[in-house]
């Protein structure tokens, strides 16, 4: 579970910082100001791109798609998102300056709307406006609907036309060294504060921060599962204790025989504790085998790559064996302390 979530986030890049701003009539920031900040802190950031998210529908002839994420970006976005081209070119600075109606599409869009034909030079209609496809990206995820291959990039200057707002409110920075993340964030915050004089008008978050949030969420979930496991282990322990008590009662005569032949208390105690330990250890092994099989097969069924972790296997084995020993101890001590005369007399 945790593995799955962390994985899906890591390909988004942990070196990104997203900045969102709310421009007002008196205080505002535009891409040029942002580029200025980038140049000032050349040693901290590698690159930056404004991002304009456009909601809408793609259309090629009669084929439509409404799941794709459509983003207006700068020419540097290929580095920001770590994309590679399979054919054509990416958006260029000149496209942005002259607000060219060009776009670069992801592999899923290419597959679903153009069915293997080369989409280069063809027209893609975004919310009714025609854009020329100049590049196709290499497959990055697995070309599924909603994945990072289901995307269209256009010059941010053209995208503002589609959103009908000249305002660009979102930027993505890439830091040189992820260890300086906190410092980079504070630099950005300072610069932005100088412009806006109000902390509510901008927000600086790193993806790693989001990742941490998600991790703490899955941590809570793991804790919940551990809680459930603990309760079931307790119940199992009481079950083992019961079985052992029954076993002691049933075998009272045997204990009597052994004691009459010279078995000491610790010998009997040892016998029963080992028996309980071995019984529950076997149970533990069976449980681990069953659990691992179920995790993998059920995980496969619901599309999660779930792997049993070695750490938890070890812990649960120790716990199950331990429970046998702990809960077997009490009945065993009772057995050891039995009076041989009474024990021999029992049927």
């Amino acid at each position, binding site marked *: 579970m945790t593995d799955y979530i962390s994985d899906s986030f890591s390909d988004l890049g942990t070196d990104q910082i997203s900045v969102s701003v709310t421009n007002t009539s008196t205080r505002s920031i535009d891409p040029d100001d942002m580029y200025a900040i980038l140049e000032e802190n050349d040693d901290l950031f590698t690159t930056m791109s404004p991002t304009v998210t456009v909601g809408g529908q793609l259309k090629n002839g009669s084929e439509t798609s409404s799941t794709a994420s459509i983003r207006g970006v700068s020419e540097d976005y290929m580095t920001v998102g770590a994309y590679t081209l399979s054919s054509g070119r990416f958006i260029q600075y000149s496209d942005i300056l002259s607000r060219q109606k060009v776009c670069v599409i992801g592999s899923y869009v290419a597959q679903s709307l153009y069915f293997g034909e080369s989409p280069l030079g063809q027209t893609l209609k975004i919310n009714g406006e025609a854009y020329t496809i100049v590049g196709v990206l290499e497959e990055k995820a697995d070309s599924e609907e909603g994945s990072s291959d289901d995307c269209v990039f256009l010059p941010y200057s053209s995208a503002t036309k589609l959103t009908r707002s000249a305002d660009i409110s979102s930027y993505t920075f890439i830091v040189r060294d992820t260890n300086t993340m906190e410092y980079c964030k504070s630099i950005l915050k300072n610069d932005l504060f100088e412009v806006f004089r109000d902390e509510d008008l901008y927000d600086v978050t790193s993806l790693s921060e989001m990742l941490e949030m998600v991790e703490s969420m899955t941590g809570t979930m793991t804790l919940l599962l551990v809680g459930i496991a603990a309760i079931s282990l307790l119940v199992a322990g009481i079950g083992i204790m019961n079985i052992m008590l029954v076993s002691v009662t049933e075998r009272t005569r045997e204990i009597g*025989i052994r004691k*009459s032949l*010279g078995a*000491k208390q610790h010998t009997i105690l040892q016998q029963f504790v080992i028996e309980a330990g071995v019984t529950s250890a076997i149970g533990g092994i069976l449980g681990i085998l069953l659990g691992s099989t179920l995790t993998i097969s059920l995980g496969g069924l619901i599309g999660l790559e779930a792997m049993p972790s070695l750490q938890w296997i070890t812990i649960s084995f120790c716990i199950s064996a331990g429970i046998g020993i702990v809960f077997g101890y009490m009945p065993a001590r009772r057995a050891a302390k039995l*009076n041989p005369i009474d024990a021999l007399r029992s049927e």
Partner: protein
Amino acid sequence: MKNIFCRNKILQTSVPHTAPSDAHRSISKKDVPLIELRDIYKIYHMGDMDVHASDGLSLKIYRGEFVSIVGKSGSGKSTIMNIIGALDIPTSGQYILGGQDVSTMKDDQLAEVRNKTIGFIFQQYNLLPKQNLLENVELPLVYAGVGKKEREQRALKSLEKVGLGDKWRYFPLQLSGGQQQRVSIARALVGNPSLILADEPTGALDSRTSRDVLDFLKQLHDEGNTIVIITHDSSIALEAERVVRIQDGNITFDGSADEYGVIILTCNLKHPEQQDALLSYDAWHYYRRCVRDYSCQPHGKHDGLYF
């Protein structure tokens, strides 16, 4: 001393003092006894009542003796057997077994005494059903800490002695009652105990196999073992050399089996004249004849012998 309650009438037994002592081994009384019970009391609290299961009992048993302790149920013989067998300790009094004072020992020390000095033979054989004969016989040696190889050798030897050496792979429930009892005898012998304590060893057997078991015990006695049989059956008690009768937690008779036989015969005669005749001077010869017949007869003919 020899006051015996019999049909509501006290019989003063006057067995001649010339009673043959050839049945007794020549035991020098100066020897240190193997078993010495001194003024043993065992008191159980049952609600408000104190039950004296053993009421100031004293007894000495020497090495090489073959003694039967006889008594009805509730007479306190089981209590005495538990104490002699180091399964229990007396409320007061001293019990010295092979020079050791057992009467104040703790549970684990008692276990060691049982393991080292006593071989038990039980009425219900008390074999472990899930282990084969060899493992069963080995058990006392396991607790004595004997190594596996020596253990197996000794256990096998012991099984051979009772004639079951070839059956060591069998499980107890695959055998007849008599064979199972032989296995339990093998188990009792395996640790070379100084005392063999048999609690109703024939109680669960038919008369024929009982005979075999008793003969085997006699053979063991002839080989020099000290044997104590606990029984409620006087005819079994007579198989020993010495009979100790227990009643109400104390000894009411302690003498040779021959003497005991006379008393039993006497008590089983219906008419007072017959009883008187038996107790006369000639009684002894009469009794001897009976005993001779008795020992020739298969066991069971005298099952009516009780008082």
